[in-house]
């Protein structure tokens, strides 16, 4: 399957998951990710898998817990209000060191919010969301092709590090039709799941999937152990794309669909002779700190962070830069998508004032 096909983001994501060996999908309907579930409902029975519409997102994520603990590749998908409901289960999944993939096709919030694209769940995805000391690996694709590749990789990363991986998209990426190639991803090496509850067959000691450690020092030890794994991930898995940064005096940074808009603005600015480039984080956790920390402070005068939120990733950008370069923010929120011209105006103002 290496020729290109034209596909909607949500459906391409679902297909990529099935191709990655996802055999079980548990979900609850919510706009704007319904096509993921619809595709799974159609395909899973034909491809030796299960699709189950749960009674709630709470139930769905706990079905994911059970299936992941039983050793299967499993996924759930939802949008912001549903992801809030899943937080209990996500925390337990992290606490029990279970691999799974969780998709959040983000919409405007808080509360019921709206159904238009947003990026206002960044804090929730990268700073915890549920209770306790834990992280998710968070992928933020910006095209349908990248969505496909990262979905496949998400299952590998989840299995390698025994942890939940989140794919953060938005309604625009989910609905967008783009040509994609499914053969483009090379699978990574996956350890055997010797810890899974598959039945002892009276041949081994029982396996227990659990997040309860009643002795404080035991729990601390386990968390420190997990932290070491997080350190490896920060070292090895942080990813970003740099665009026209070599001579740039202004750096725009944005992720997901917003990066596509920002890139258009960067190109327009370049046509007007403005030395501007872009850093696009691909992993939101681990955050690609080095991409910012290693910017040449003599050359780069300003960093402009563009988001579909009131400014969430901008905090990580500032932390990575450690006050060495001033950081500005431009955002639209509530489901309003920024236009390239709005971003361009902001770039021009910074360039003139540098």
């Amino acid at each position, binding site marked *: 399957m290496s020729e290109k096909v034209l596909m909607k983001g949500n459906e391409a994501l679902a297909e990529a998951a099935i191709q990655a060996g996802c055999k079980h999908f548990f979900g609850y309907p919510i706009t704007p990710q319904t096509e993921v579930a619809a595709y799974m409902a159609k395909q899973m029975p034909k491809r030796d898998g*299960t699709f*189950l519409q749960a009674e709630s997102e709470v139930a769905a994520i*706990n*079905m994911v*817990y059970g299936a992941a603990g039983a050793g299967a590749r499993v996924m759930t998908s939802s949008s912001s209000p549903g992801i809030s409901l899943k937080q209990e289960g996500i925390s337990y999944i992290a606490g029990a060191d279970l691999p799974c993939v969780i998709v959040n096709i983000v919409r405007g919030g808080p509360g019921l919010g709206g159904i238009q694209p947003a990026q206002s769940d960044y804090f929730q995805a990268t700073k915890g969301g549920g209770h306790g000391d834990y992280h998710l690996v968070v992928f933020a694709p910006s095209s349908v092709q990248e969505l496909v590749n990262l979905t496949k990789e998400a299952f590998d990363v989840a299995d390698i590090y025994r942890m939940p991986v989140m794919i953060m998209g938005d309604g625009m990426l989910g609905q967008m039709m783009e040509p994609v190639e499914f053969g483009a991803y090379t699978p990574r090496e996956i350890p055997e799941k010797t810890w899974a509850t598959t*039945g002892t*067959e009276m041949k081994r000691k029982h396996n227990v999937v659990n*997040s309860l450690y009643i002795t404080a020092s035991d729990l601390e030890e386990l968390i420190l152990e997990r932290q070491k794994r997080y350190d490896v991930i920060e070292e090895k898995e942080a990813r970003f794309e740099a665009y026209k940064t070599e001579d740039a005096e202004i750096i725009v940074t944005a992720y997901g669909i917003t990066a596509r808009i920002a890139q258009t603005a960067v190109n327009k600015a370049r046509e007007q002779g403005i030395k501007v480039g872009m850093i696009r984080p691909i992993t939101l956790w681990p955050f690609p700190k080095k991409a910012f920390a290693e910017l040449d402070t003599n050359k780069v005068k300003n960093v402009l962070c563009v988001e579909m939120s009131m400014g969430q990733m901008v905090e990580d950008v500032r932390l990575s830069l450690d006050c060495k370069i001033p950081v500005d923010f431009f955002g639209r929120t509530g489901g309003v998508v920024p236009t390239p011209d709005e971003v361009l105006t902001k770039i021009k103002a910074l360039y003139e004032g540098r």
Partner: protein
Amino acid sequence: MEQVFKRPHALVDVSEHYCPGCGHGIVHRLVAEVLDELDIEGKTIGVAPVGCAVFAYNYFECDMQEAAHGRAPAVATGIKRVHPDKVVFTYQGDGDLAAIGTAETVHAAARGENITVIFINNAIYGMTGGQMAPTSLMGQVTQTTPYGRTEQNQGFPIHVCEMLSTLDGVALAQRTTINSVKAIKETKAAIKKAFQNQIDKKGFSIVEVVSTCPTNWGKTPVEAMKWLEENMLPVYPLGVYKDKE
């Protein structure tokens, strides 16, 4: 010499943390005996609740998962969908199954999820120190009903077997107790049937065991058994509420 009484193989050889006179210990043993007798320990995956039985994952020799409070039927569903030919059971208290996890219970039952549910109804929250449960009796004094459970304030207890027996997905809904040797034998027979149903792919089977919590009832083990007989059994009549042949 013939050994006539021994620890079931499926029960881990450790001392359990349950209080004297607590029903959990008895029912654990019955479940383990059934796993032995049906010879299914090696293909069984159990799901422990949040409640006094939270450490059940340390007590059964089969593979175990520990679920979030009330979510055991959803976790069991996930396991069963991955391993349809393995045996999956949950073990849950009344707060777990009939308060915070009501939705998960009802929908697993409605789907006819082919799992076995062991439900311990002790009319109170044991683990957290004796608060009102959905199954607490009218007038029952608990830490959170210091003036007794009233119609006006907390409403009425939930009758789980009666409620679930209305659902088509339920194969077995049976209520038993543990106040005598005979009752314990009946409980074991019901548990065995609930597992056999799963092996026979009949659907959702639940055994509700009317049980004791001497510690939080503020009673001795003997008084607790008497309280169960005099107060709980009239409200929770024993019997088979659904048996799909």
